[in-house]
């Protein structure tokens, strides 16, 4: 069962994503800020990280760069209310970019797709 780390400073969104991803059969863990998120990446070795971009303190893009510096193989999905971040090439290193929506199915499907791609690449 794949472990998904959700990093978002909005508690209600963390709860929503956890609920929906668990329902889809994933194991989840959450962090309320980027620093905690990086810690969990080290200690709990998630299979995929969902990163909010706008967070107090370190933002999601910097967190992604730090994650990728350590391990390029961990897939990262950027999840944000700001669709304009797509124009920032720094976000292009992410495996996927999903704009926040109350219909979480797009996020869930993206998680599945990215994990599948990773599995195919490894085989």
């Amino acid at each position, binding site marked *: 069962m794949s472990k998904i780390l959700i990093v978002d400073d909005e508690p209600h969104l963390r709860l929503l994503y956890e609920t929906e991803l668990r329902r889809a059969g994933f194991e989840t863990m959450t962090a309320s800020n980027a620093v905690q998120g990086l810690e969990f990446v080290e200690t709990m070795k998630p299979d995929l990280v969902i990163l909010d971009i706008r967070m107090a303190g370190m933002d999601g893009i910097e967190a992604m760069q730090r994650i990728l510096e350590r391990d390029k193989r961990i897939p990262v999905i950027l999840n944000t*209310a700001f*669709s304009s971040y797509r124009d920032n*090439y720094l976000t292009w*290193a992410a495996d996927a970019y999903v704009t926040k929506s*109350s219909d979480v199915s797009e996020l869930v499907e993206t998680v599945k797709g990215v994990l599948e791609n990773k599995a195919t690449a490894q085989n």
Partner: protein
Amino acid sequence: MSDERNLQRRMEIVAEGFFHSALPLILVQPDGRILAASRGVCELVKLPWGRLVGNPVGALFVPALDVTDCRDHGVCNPEYMQLEIQTSEGALLPVEVVCRKFFAPDLGREGAGIPGTGDPADREPNHCLLYISDTRQRDHDDELRAARLAKLSLLNQVSEALYGANLTLDQVLEAVLICITAGQGLRFNRAFLLLVDEKSGLLKGELAIGPSNADEAARIWHDLAYQGGDLFSMMTSYDQSIKQTDVAVNEIVRHMVIPLDQESNVLVRSMQERQARRITPGMILPGVATIQSWLGYGEFAVAPLITRSGMLGAIIADNAISGNTITDLDLEFLQLFANQSASAIENSRLYTELEKRLIALRKAHEKQKEDQETLLRMERLSVMGETSAIVAHELRNPLVAIGGFARALVRNLDDDDPNHQYAAIITEEVGRMETIIHDLLDFIRPQKLLRKDVAIDQLAADTAARFREELEKKHIELELDCQAPGVLVSCNPGEIQQVLQNFLMNAIQVMADGGRLEVRTRLLDGGVKVEVCDTGPGFAKEVADKLFSPFFTTKPTGSGLGLTICSQIIKSHGGVAGARNRSRKGAGFSFILPLPKE
């Protein structure tokens, strides 16, 4: 010396002085005989003094002058006469005679012992003094004076007209030539205007005025003979009379080209010396023969058009039709007139230039104003846009939570539970709000992807062609292997071209010692593949999966973003970019773009 002797001596001096006068004066005795005549009279009638004195004055004139009237009456009658005077050569010259009676002082009678009083008032008027003036000379002087006056007045008119009116440069040039040829003007038959062209360093014929033959001339001059008036009426009448006839002279003027560096050329020298010149058939000066051949006539005048700021050009004028000699006066006025014209031409040019600049300035000002307004409008829009974007984004997070959980409720509640319906309503309404936010943000974001249907083979070939020169220089052979003819891909052509360029540049860089570059297109199931292959060293297996990652580069000066951007561009088109080592030698970078489903 006695007083008498003294007096006599003084009288001799007076008589001597009288004789030396260049003015024609005759002193007549009461008996009508000449007492004395001045040198002016001797010259006029061509007789020595001695042959005049003592003879009756009346015989000198036709009709004979009778001065007895003067002697008998208290005053001269008439005082003023127009007569003719006879010369010793038998000629009759028209003269004016003014007669003045005067009182000779009573000197008494020498030798008879009767003393004179020496007082003129004691005697009846007895002698006459005749002032004679040669009307020929006067008429000639008058004519000259009148001509000068007319020409000066014309100059004055011209300068007023040329400066005052808003004439265009062409009109000024035409006016100048008209004044040189007009009867009221300088009366030359033909005038040619040459202007300096600074760019080419040439003095070039610009405009000419004048009839081409005597018949035409006669007609024009007849037309104009009764046209008086000012410059403008002159210009208009001239315009009409001459318009069709100056074809020949304008044909001549078009051939007039003189390089300004021919400093010895008579025209160039005239300009440099700021001096008008008259050229006569016999003169041998550099350039004269050429001008004479242009004019088809030997005698002409040149006048430079000079202003304080430099040489504008020159005027050539001649009397090829009438054959009249060019006089000193003609030349003097041509020079004066040329000076006036030069300033007028320069003024007109400056004015035109000024007008042009003014228009340009006004346009620039308007443009600036427009730009400023656009900028302000854009700024306002941008502030509005930013504000809406921030608000929209901030609303998104809570909406996602509300809508997300409402969906969970819809899912978890039984269909017949009334709360199911409520939750469904919440979901729906949140969905509406999200759509509004989405549309709003999409509207604010500039539309970056402008898709067009592009023939992919053409695009690949065109892009490769841009590198042809560089490929040749680096001894790289290009092979186009395009096998998707006519296939259209919906894409942003600029972006796809950017990707191809990136691939091509990378390939060229890895083949520093030459090689072979292949650009291939292949039609796949549901897509089209474009690949750029090189015969370079290829890449190490370990870096294969990093090639498209940001900041990864094998080049010392690379940013490591080129392929990342390529990959993103292809992704944004719904495609995929990839790289492979070729089985023989080199690498291949490719992308696949999806084709629209049918």
